[in-house]
């Protein structure tokens, strides 16, 4: 009978689970706008989740955990930045390496922390959701209405021109990739401090990949990313809620199948639209 309550509760949980997806996506969008694709989101998220959980356990301060998780995510991203920007290695492979390393390291160091209850969780989930929404709006404003935005986009679109105008391409890319890592780390912290709240190995369960996909079919636009993140938050949540009727394994498949669908649907006709021109291409002064 309580139809309305069920819908509302579902919407709230969808918003809640959409929050880490949104944070991660916004970070990835910034990195990719600078011309660096980072496939290491899954690895940075899981490291953030573990770091946040451990710090919150040790200090009793979930906010400190969130901060440390952001720093850990940023540090992990710098690894990718160094290999792909300074050493000019293949960005795909470097990101994959980061994901493998992150999953492995978190699995190893997190071994003793599984199954422990977390007493001090992040209290206000809704505040974190609003923070994500606010950040999306802020990023949109920065991208299209500030000098920083122009610098970031030009580095991703035409690094040689930006370089000629005196922009430090490598520095901008480093900062953008680090920002992506900070956001991914914070997203992981959200999972282990607020949503679950617990630490289990592999708890990101592919969310990092969905984040990268949303960045693409949101056409690297922070506002569209909001819609994408909420949609997938709802999908992930429904995959828990519908288990009374459908086999849970089939439900868990749903977000991934839907990702393929979304990528295919947004690719048709206007292919590549919105992709930063220099995405994935290392930049060397004087070389084209």
């Amino acid at each position: 009978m309580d139809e309305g309550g069920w819908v509302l509760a579902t919407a709230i949980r969808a918003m809640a689970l959409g929050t880490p997806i949104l944070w991660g996506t916004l970070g990835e969008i910034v990195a990719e706008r600078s011309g660096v694709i980072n496939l290491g989101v899954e690895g940075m998220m899981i490291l953030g989740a573990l770091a946040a959980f451990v710090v919150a356990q040790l200090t009793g301060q979930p906010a400190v955990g969130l901060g440390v998780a952001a720093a850990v995510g940023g540090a992990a991203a710098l690894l990718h930045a160094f290999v792909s920007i300074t050493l000019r290695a293949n960005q795909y492979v470097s990101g994959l390496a980061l994901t493998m390393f992150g999953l492995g390291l978190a699995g190893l160091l997190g071994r003793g922390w599984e199954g422990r209850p977390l007493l001090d969780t992040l209290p206000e989930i809704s505040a974190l959701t609003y923070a994500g929404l606010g950040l999306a709006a802020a990023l949109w404003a920065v991208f299209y209405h500030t000098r920083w935005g122009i610098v970031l986009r030009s580095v991703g679109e035409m690094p040689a021109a930006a370089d000629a105008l005196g922009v430090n391409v490598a520095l901008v890319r480093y900062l953008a990739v680090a920002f992506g890592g900070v956001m991914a780390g914070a997203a992981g912290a959200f999972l282990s401090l607020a949503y679950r709240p617990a630490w289990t190995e592999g708890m990101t369960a592919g969310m990092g990949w969905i984040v990268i996909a949303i960045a693409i079919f949101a056409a690297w636009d922070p506002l569209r990313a909001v819609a994408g993140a909420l949609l997938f938050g709802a999908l992930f949540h429904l995959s828990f809620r519908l288990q009374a009727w459908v086999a849970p394994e089939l439900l868990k498949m749903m977000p991934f199948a839907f990702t393929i669908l979304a990528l295919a649907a947004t690719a048709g006709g206007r292919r590549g639209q919105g992709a930063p021109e220099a995405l994935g291409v290392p930049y060397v002064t004087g070389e084209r």
Partner: protein
Amino acid sequence: MRRLGPLVLEPDPAPPPARVLGVSLLALAGAVAAAGVVFAAYGADPLYAYAVIVRGTFAGLREISEVVRRTIPLLLCGVGLALAFRAQFWNIGAEGQLLAGAVGATAVALFVPLPGPWVLVAMFAAGFATGALWGLLPTLLRLRLSVNEVLTTLMMNYIALYAVAWLIHGPWKGATQFGFAYTDTFPEAARLPLLAGTRVHWPTLAVGLALAAALAFLLARTRLGFEVRVLGQNPVAGRYAGIDPARTLLAVMVLSAGAAGLAGVGEVAGVHHKLLDPGQVSLGYGYAAIVVAWLARGSPLAAVLTATLLGAIFTSGDVLKVALQMPFRVTDVFNGLILFFLIGSERLLAVRIRWAPPAATVRVGSGLPGTPEAGGES
């Protein structure tokens, strides 16, 4: 050109095999050293851990045969990925294709009545077909709609994972297995023979070695191989040369994904004799195969060596679990680090170091170090 004491560093975009090997070994050494740091952070003595690994992988026949057993799926997935990477097709979906192959083989083993020796043949054929099928959708999406194959192949991994989980909990749940989620055990005719005294299912190994040789031949000596190499190095030139990228990529992906499917057949028919939890069917072989292919620099023959190395790492995972109570995930630390050091060291490939102590020898360096193309044989 740069001077470093008596040494001269010159750009040289075409590295000789000896330098490729040297740089690769250097990268591996770096990864091993970095892994030692991780061990120390975990609270384990790195030197003791290394000793445990060496003993656990090389000490005797039992240890070596375990490495070989782990090498089999890595080799099959790895040679397939090497081929795909040569064509600049980013197949990250070997894990899912392996699982799909396992499902195909299980379907034959459990539900298709065939006369004795034909069972295994049909299982390999079905595994290849289902593996290839699993790679088809990302390929078509890339060809028709330019959808990035990295993400679609990855998504297919997760879909395969949950599909296997669904099968073993639902429609294929074994009648004889009370409370456990796996299928019925395969009949005797659907089990691969083992090398005496080991757990090595040798027919799959033979298939893997044959496939490595066949793909090396294909790349070096056939029209399709030529097209793959041209497309991989310069797609625009390929199109002008009249190469149909759709046809070529489709062929590449059928072979690449099919090979991963064969790996899945070996795991269920040679190791488990049933379909079970996807995390046990594959311990992440499909992902580790990316390292196999990249370390082999796109050469199927070199993949035999690099798959063995990764096989040793997976065996180390077992050994470290027992000796140091580390979770099996430690293998991912190794894999990630190797990949990092490998691509991080790639620029060294394009540098020739020459001994030139006396007065400055001036030579004009030609060009700047570019990204070295993958390729062992050509």
